[in-house]
């Protein structure tokens, strides 16, 4: 039906215009393979989703990204619902200084989303993370707009408490980037970029070489090696 096709095309155009693809400057992660695949570093000023299981690998990866974003001294906001189980000293292992983290325990998802949106509009922050298993498209788009307006990078950390990681990954999302992170044996992570606006997906294996404790600085403690250097869209799972 040409009429229907036209409507669908018009809607597609509308969506493309309403969803700002623009992201802020890149923040180099210090991992050449990943930086290269992302076009220079982590895109900032946008909403990203980090999907994982309750095991903490996704949280660790998100802490690492936030640590890089906060390297200029700005604080980050890390929020969750209810009691939460974040152990702030553990953030230091991923290069995020716990003293630089504003902790928020929200009473409801609505409160958490509100705080996240406020935070994303607050350029004094390096980043905002909410432990939330995704949000609906409208809320997601609001967050994306807020992030673009404030230049702050936001992360929805989906811990798969109710849905499996693959079910979470299959849900529609307004995030500009979607990561999936799983633990691998021998202190490694499998990091998959499921979607990146204006770019292809990719899979990497990060090796966490936790440096010995001689250093008291909270410098970047995660060393990474790329098992599969190709950021090719069809990168096979190298495990």
């Amino acid at each position, binding site marked *: 039906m040409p009429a229907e096709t036209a409507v669908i095309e018009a809607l597609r155009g509308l969506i493309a215009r309403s969803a700002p693809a623009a992201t802020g400057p890149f923040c180099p992660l210090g991992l050449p393979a990943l930086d290269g695949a992302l076009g220079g570093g982590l895109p900032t000023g946008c909403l990203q989703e980090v999907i994982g299981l309750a095991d903490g690998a996704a*949280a660790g990866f998100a802490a690492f990204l936030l640590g890089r974003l906060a390297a200029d001294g700005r604080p980050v906001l890390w929020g969750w619902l209810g009691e939460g189980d974040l152990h702030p000293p553990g953030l230091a292992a991923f290069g995020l200084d716990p003293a630089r983290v504003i902790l928020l325990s929200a*009473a409801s998802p609505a409160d958490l989303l509100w*705080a996240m949106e406020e935070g994303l509009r607050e350029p004094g922050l390096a980043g905002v993370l909410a432990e939330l298993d995704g949000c609906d498209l409208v809320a997601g788009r609001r967050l994306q707009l807020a992030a673009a307006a404030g230049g702050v990078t936001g992360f929805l950390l989906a811990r798969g408490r109710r849905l499996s990681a693959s079910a979470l990954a299959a849900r529609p999302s307004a995030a500009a980037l979607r990561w999936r992170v799983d*633990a691998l*044996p*021998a202190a490694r992570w499998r990091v998959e970029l499921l979607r990146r606006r204006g770019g292809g997906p990719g899979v990497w294996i990060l090796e966490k070489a936790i440096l010995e404790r001689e250093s008291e600085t909270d410098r970047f403690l995660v060393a990474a090696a790329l098992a599969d250097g190709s950021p090719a869209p069809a990168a096979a799972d190298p495990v």
Partner: protein
Amino acid sequence: MWLPRWPTDRLRRRQPIPSDRPLVAVAELGGRALVTAADALAAAGGILPGSSLADARALLPGLAVLPADPAGDAAELARLADWCGRYSPLVALDGADGLWIDITGAAHLFGGEEALIADLRHRLAALGHDARAAIADTPGAAWAMARFAGTPEAILPPGRLAAALAELPVASLRLPPAMAAELERLGLRRIADLYPLPRASLARRFGLLPGERLDQALGRAEEPISPRLPAPAHVVRRLLPEPILEADGIAAVLQRLLGRLCEELAEAGQGARRLDLHCYRVDGRVIRLSVGTSRPAREPRALARLFAERLDRIDPGFGIEAMALAAARVEAMSDLQLVLDREGRVGRGGKAGRESDPLLASFVDRLGNRLGFSRIARAIPRESHLPERAVSRLALDAEAPPARWPDDPGPLRLFGRPEQVEADGDPPETFLWRRRRHRILKAEGPARIAPEWWRGPAGDLRDYWRLEDEEGHRFWLYGQAGSWYLHGLFA
């Protein structure tokens, strides 16, 4: 200000009783129904408070009778006192039927003392209250004039207290009725009669009270009123020519009030930690809205944002006719911070840390006001070798005690209550957690942690292990007295 018919005025406001029908309030005392308050019509008919209901009915058969409500009277008087905050923040309750309002320096805002007193009585009359008001240099003189001058409005010119009070009865000195009667019996009926008396002989007979009251009324002795609400250091108020009904209007007035208040604060070198907004409604109600800040603030725009969230929750009723904004809690704030306020925008995104970034402070304030300040915190290290005690949550504005983070950052997830798991082996080779069996391939440990025996009943030693299962999940388990507990997760 005296409200001679307060209880019956109040009853009339709540119950439709024909205005030509006399009304009394009645309470039971010792098995007898006694009149506790009579309105003007009943009083004109000869009914006085304290007479029995039967006598009153005999005098005026058409009398309307309602039960007295002294607790309600007192509560409503307190509300009225709050409403009088539109004239001045210093309002004190005076017994069960009066209020003291300290209008020092406030009258010009209302067009002078006469206009103020007329405005007050007019508004109270519209609410159904008969009010007698007097303005004088001392609370005692105002009290005497309101009750005994015989006119509903009285203004004593400053410095002429002795002459103005001379002809009033001694009862107007706020003396117990028995003492006033005794003075009158001795021929001391008027206040002027007391002027020539030697203080010592008066004190010998009646104690210190009459002399003290006389000095207070004449301004020879200080008598501070004790305001119902503590007087804030800075208050700005605005009377509205037309009552406003819209949230936009409220916001616009608030904007101007904030501008003026912040100027006052800047002059005083202070910043607000709490702001109270009072909206005075046409119907005599006061709507109060408070916002807090995590650090002293006096930036009108940032403060307006704190209110913005909640302005639509103000129910204007039939309109708001006055608004007052008070800095209820203030702290010293140096000019340096103000400079940062103004230039913060330039510097932000740079090296400005949380401590020195006023924009971030206003962000934290918005979070705190909406979600509760107890919900935002930062983590600080605490000297304890128990992992669950090694972190404490600290309010963002509190000073952090010096302590260092443990050398070992520990797991990323730490459970508030360790979860007991079924484990085989020591260290465990497999364990069952949340209905999933984990096969352990790597174990690192044990790290022994002794309980802090000084914190109550001594527990057993804990032996912590870092375990990794075949899928790469990393756990922090400890064995204690033969059982295994999962305490945290590594990333």
